[in-house]
Each structure stands twice: as structure tokens, then as C-alpha cells.
């Protein structure tokens, strides 16, 4: 608890990240795929001399510019804000490692945004060939932003043995490229590129659906068919790339997938299985709808269907990202930092010397509790609350997302104490070990946490 904890009721800080990230991804990957879609479509139109295509493309590029600039850029910054709020410790680690990675991404980003603006504002105003070239520069720079950010994202799941071997020694910077091109880097890059093409096709259908198919049937059908082709590479290759990706994930993490199937019961254990089910089903539905409803029925393909496709893509993206996040459990940075910001290397120190005493924040607060509060019990509750915020709050809320009041319903203090003890000992056969960090701290801190959790569960059963 090096930093104060951002306590978002019902949703949790992680939930805020998840929402922003999914929404961002849907647009950002569109920016990457759509970046290639536009110049390739323009090239086709130029080659075939299709005036009517230009009208549609121009309208699409406007939609594209506004969507990627006003909603994509800001939500990207939003993820960054949100991770800084919800998990400052991990964000700090990432930034110290990758600050120049981000700086490089930023260069591509500037080129990307500038060319996007030029591309839209110079339709009809410059030589079409030059215009097309600008489009290609845009496509390249937007893909390069993905090339960079992918390194940082995949690092969190698989930092790789080289980086882990120097982690904590102060020489992390010397292995920058190992951390960057980590084991899951390439499968993830290919996967994301394929998905970006899919999204380019889906978003293009939104523009196409606005055309009146009864009057401009040929144009509409052509545009829809051409856009639908953007889904083919992803459709064919994603399953294989996904297996490749999984092969690169450490065995311990892969077991989490199995956990969802072998352990029965609702709620806690089966999240990855459920996410996978949704991803597979929504993806298949997208393909089926694009072919049977959009391509085969282009004439009457309307905005409602197009939006349904985008929503399905949203569901697929959200559940994939959720699965990826779950796969990282119990870490936020694989094998280095637990999801609550406790470094793996610090566990023993905290257990021996206390968790709260090592947070400059809490150390002062706790002293204050015991001098200000009327009873020791009241002070314990406050101390327990700090423990809860620091160690549980990253994934649990009191009521709401993974709510303690639901999980602890009808438990007495002994039962709660037993669970906490099991989390604290974190033995090899503990069923929680695979996805929950060890509970760290001295006995009095853990007792205070139990008292606080007991209070929550009592409040819950009222």
C-alpha cells in the first residue's frame, strides 16, 4: 500500500480499467485495421475508376477520423489514467521499464494522427496518388503503434526468464529488448493484427449499411462484399494463432484454463471457461451474420444489423480481454508482482515486519487510529479496512463486482479466519493459490482484516 488506494464502489478500479480498455480496443484496433482498409479501398476505386466508391470512402474516412481521434485517442489516454489510479505500483514498474517504449509509440502516434487528419482534409484537394500515399503512411504508422504497445501488454503476462532473472537487481534496463520481445510477443502481435482487420471490415459495414440498397443496390453490395472479405484472414488464422499464443503461456497459467472445466460450481472458478465460450460463440455469430445477413442480403442490410455486429464484436473483445486478464492471475506482472501490487520478492519481508508498517501512508494512519479511536475494536476495524483496501480491493469490492458481502455471506469469524490463514500460508495445495495472491502481513494485521470482513458479512446478512 505504497500509494493510497482508489476505492471505486461496486465496480472496483479494475472494473474501470476493463470497461475503458475494451471500449478503447474496439476503436484502436479499428484504427489499425481501418488504416489499411482505406488506402486499399481507395486504390481499388482509383484503378477501376469508381466515382461512387469515392463518395462512400470519403464519408467513411470522416467517420473514421472522428471515431479514432475523439473516441480512440482519448480512451487510450483513459486507460493510462485508469491504470495509474487503480494500480500505481504496477504502472510505475511498467513506466520505469518501458518509458522509451512508450515514447517511441508516441512518435508513431503523432505521425498517425497527423496523417489521418491530412488524409481526411485533402480529399479532392491534392493529387489522388499523393493522397493514396498519405493513406499508406497512416496505415504503417498506426500498425507500428500496435507493434510497440503489444510489447508492453504481453510483458505483463510473460516478462520472460531473462528479465525476471535481473528483476530487482537494478539492471532491468539492460534487458529492455528481452522484456519487449517476450515469449507471447509474436503470437499476440499476429493475433491483434488479424483482429484489427476484422474490425476494419465490421466498422466499414456500419458506413455501408447507411446506403439505400433498393436504389444503389450494386454499390452497396460491392462495398459490403469487399468489406466482408476483411474478416476472412482472421476467421481462418485466429484459431491457429490462439493455440500458438497458448503454447507460449507458462504452464501454471495455462492450468487456470483447466480449472474452469474441472472445478464445478458457479461463480469463482469458471470465469475463463465462460469467457472462452462467449468469445467462440460471438465470433462464429459475427461470421455467420456477415455472410448471411450482410453479404447475401445487402439490399436490406440496415444500421440495426450493423450495430448488432459491432456489439457482438464488443462482447467478443471484452470476453477475450477478460480471459487474458484472468490468465495472468494471481499476478499483475507475471511472476513478479501480484495483482494487488505486492512484489513477489517482498512477501517474506511483509510477513516478518508487517504490511501496513511498510506503507508510509498507512503507518501514520494506523498510529492515529489507536490514539484517536475510543475502543481497540474500532481501531482494529479501521486497520482491517486499510488491509482490505491494500490487499483485496484490487479485485474485490464490498458489494458489487466480486463482492465480499456475497462471498462471505453466512460465515462466522472462525470460518473467515480459516480462509485468511489459508491465503496467508499459501501452501502448494491451496485451491486459491492458482489465482489469488498470498495474504501478507503480521498476525495482528490479519486478525484486523478478519474483524473487518466479519463486519462486512454481518452488514450483508442484514
Amino acid at each position, binding site marked *: 500500500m505504497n500509494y493510497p488506494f482508489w476505492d471505486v464502489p461496486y465496480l472496483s478500479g479494475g472494473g474501470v480499467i476493463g470497461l475503458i480498455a475494451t471500449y478503447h480496443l474496439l476503436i484502436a484496433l479499428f484504427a489499425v485495421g481501418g488504416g489499411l482498409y482505406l488506402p486499399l479501398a481507395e486504390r481499388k476505386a482509383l484503378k477501376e475508376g469508381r466515382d*461512387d466508391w469515392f463518395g462512400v470512402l470519403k464519408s467513411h474516412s470522416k467517420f473514421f477520423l472522428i471515431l479514432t481521434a475523439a473516441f480512440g485517442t482519448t480512451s487510450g489516454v483513459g486507460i493510462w489514467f485508469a491504470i495509474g489510479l487503480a494500480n500505481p505500483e504496477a504502472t510505475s514498474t511498467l513506466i520505469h521499464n518501458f518509458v522509451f517504449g512508450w515514447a517511441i509509440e508516441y512518435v508513431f502516434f503523432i505521425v498517425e494522427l497527423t496523417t489521418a487528419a491530412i488524409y481526411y482534409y485533402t480529399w479532392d484537394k491534392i493529387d489522388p496518388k499523393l493522397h493514396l500515399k498519405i493513406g499508406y503512411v497512416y496505415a504503417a504508422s498506426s500498425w507500428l503503434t500496435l507493434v510497440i504497445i503489444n510489447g508492453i501488454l504481453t510483458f505483463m503476462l510473460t516478462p520472460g526468464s531473462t528479465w525476471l532473472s535481473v528483476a530487482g537487481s537494478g539492471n532491468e534496463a539492460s534487458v529492455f529488448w528481452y522484456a519487449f520481445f517476450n515469449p507471447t510477443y509474436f503470437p499476440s502481435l499476429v493475433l491483434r493484427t488479424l483482429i484489427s482487420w476484422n474490425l476494419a471490415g465490421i466498422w466499414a459495414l456500419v458506413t455501408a449499411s447507411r446506403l439505400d440498397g433498393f*436504389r*444503389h*443496390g*450494386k*454499390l452497396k*453490395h460491392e462495398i459490403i462484399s469487399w468489406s466482408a472479405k476483411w474478416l476472412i484472414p482472421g*476467421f481462418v488464422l485466429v484459431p491457429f494463432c490462439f493455440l500458438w499464443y497458448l503454447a507460449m503461456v507458462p504452464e501454471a497459467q495455462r492450468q487456470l484454463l483447466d480449472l474452469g*472445466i474441472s*472445478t*464445478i*460450481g458457479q461463480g469463482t472458478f469458471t470465469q475463463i471457461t465462460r469467457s472462452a*465460450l462467449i468469445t*467462440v*460463440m460471438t*465470433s*462464429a455469430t459475427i*461470421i*455467420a451474420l456477415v*455472410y448471411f445477413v450482410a453479404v*447475401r*442480403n*445487402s*439490399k436490406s442490410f440496415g444500421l440495426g444489423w450493423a450495430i448488432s455486429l459491432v456489439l457482438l464484436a464488443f462482447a467478443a473483445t471484452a470476453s477475450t480481454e477478460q480471459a487474458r486478464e484472468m490468465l495472468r492471475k494471481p499476478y499483475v506482472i507475471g511472476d513478479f508482482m501480484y495483482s494487488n501490487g505486492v512484489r513477489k520478492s517482498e512477501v517474506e519481508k511483509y510477513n516478518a515486519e508487517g504490511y501496513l508498517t511498510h506503507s508510509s501512508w498507512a503507518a501514520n494512519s494506523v498510529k492515529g487510529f489507536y490514539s484517536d479511536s475510543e475502543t481497540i475494536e474500532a481501531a482494529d476495524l479501521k486497520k482491517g479496512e486499510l488491509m482490505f483496501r491494500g490487499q483485496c480491493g484490487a479485485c474485490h469490492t464490498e458489494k458489487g463486482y466480486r463482492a465480499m458481502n456475497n462471498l462471505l455471506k*453466512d*460465515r*462466522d469469524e*472462525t*470460518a*473467515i479466519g*480459516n*480462509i485468511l*490463514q*489459508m491465503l496467508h500460508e499459501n501452501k502448494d*495445495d491451496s*485451491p486459491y493459490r492458482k489465482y489469488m495472491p498470498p495474504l501478507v502481513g503480521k498476525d495482528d494485521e490479519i486478525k484486523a482484516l478478519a474483524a473487518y470482513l466479519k463486519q462486512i458479512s454481518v452488514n450483508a446478512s442484514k
Partner: protein
Amino acid sequence: MINEDAINDILRSQDNDDPEIDGSKRSFLWMGVGAIGAVYVGAIGYPVYKYLATPAERAASETAVNSATLDGADKLPVNSALMFKFGTKPAMLIRSADGNFVALNAVCTHLGCTVKYNPETVRIECACHGGVYDAKTGSNISGPPPKPLTKFNVEVQDGRVLVTRA
């Protein structure tokens, strides 16, 4: 800009029987349709299969192993427990204060956590949701467990303990 012929053109091109769709394209499309269908069959069929097959799988795994031999377990101190694997599942051998041996399945009947013996209370407890069982009979005393722990037969031999399915 767009005339009647063009629309007819489209209508025709949307038709399945249009010769314009050549053989390889058509077979690609059919492959696609087949793949989507396979995905649906898998996403729905797998859970349904698992659902229906549960009792069979249980029976198979339960009958697969009928005994376990624990070398040296006859020296187990009183009021303590030894965890062991009975087939693939955890089980526990408890020696009570009066020196008697009891062997029980160690999987909580509530949600499947591994239970543990608490020598202070002389009870078996599940840390996950606070279930409590009697250490001698395995019967569920308090908390959420709906059923008692399965009890095994115990045979103490010289230098080892033999646990068999009751």
C-alpha cells in the same frame, strides 16, 4: 447513376445458383459454413456431453482405484492426520486420541475444497466456506456441506496401513 439492370445484376449475383460463383469459391463458402456450424456444435455440444457424462466419469474414476497402501503410517502420532492420495483424490488418515485409525475422503462435499484436520477441536474443517465434519465418522456437523465425507476401510498391518473402499 444506377439503373434497373444493375439491380437485377445484384439480385442474380446474390442467388445461390449463379454460375458466377465458381466451384472453388463455393467450396470455400461451404467450408466456412461448416466451420461455423462446427463451432456451434462444439460450444453447445461439449457442455451437453460433459453434463450427461458426469455420472459415467465419476463411476469410472471411483472404481479405478480401490485401495491405497501407506507405508509407515501405523506409527502416526495420536491426534494427528496424514494426507494421502486415494487414486486421484486427496484423502486423510486420522489417528484419534484413543489410538484408533479412521480414513476419510478429504474432498469437501460442498464445493470440492480439500479439508484439513484440526487437532485442537478434534474436528475436520474446510477453510473455503467453513464446513465442519466429525473426525470419527466424517458426518457433516456444521456449515454448508450437504453430505458427510466418504469413509474408507482401514486395516493396520505391521509397518503399513491399508486403506480400501468400503
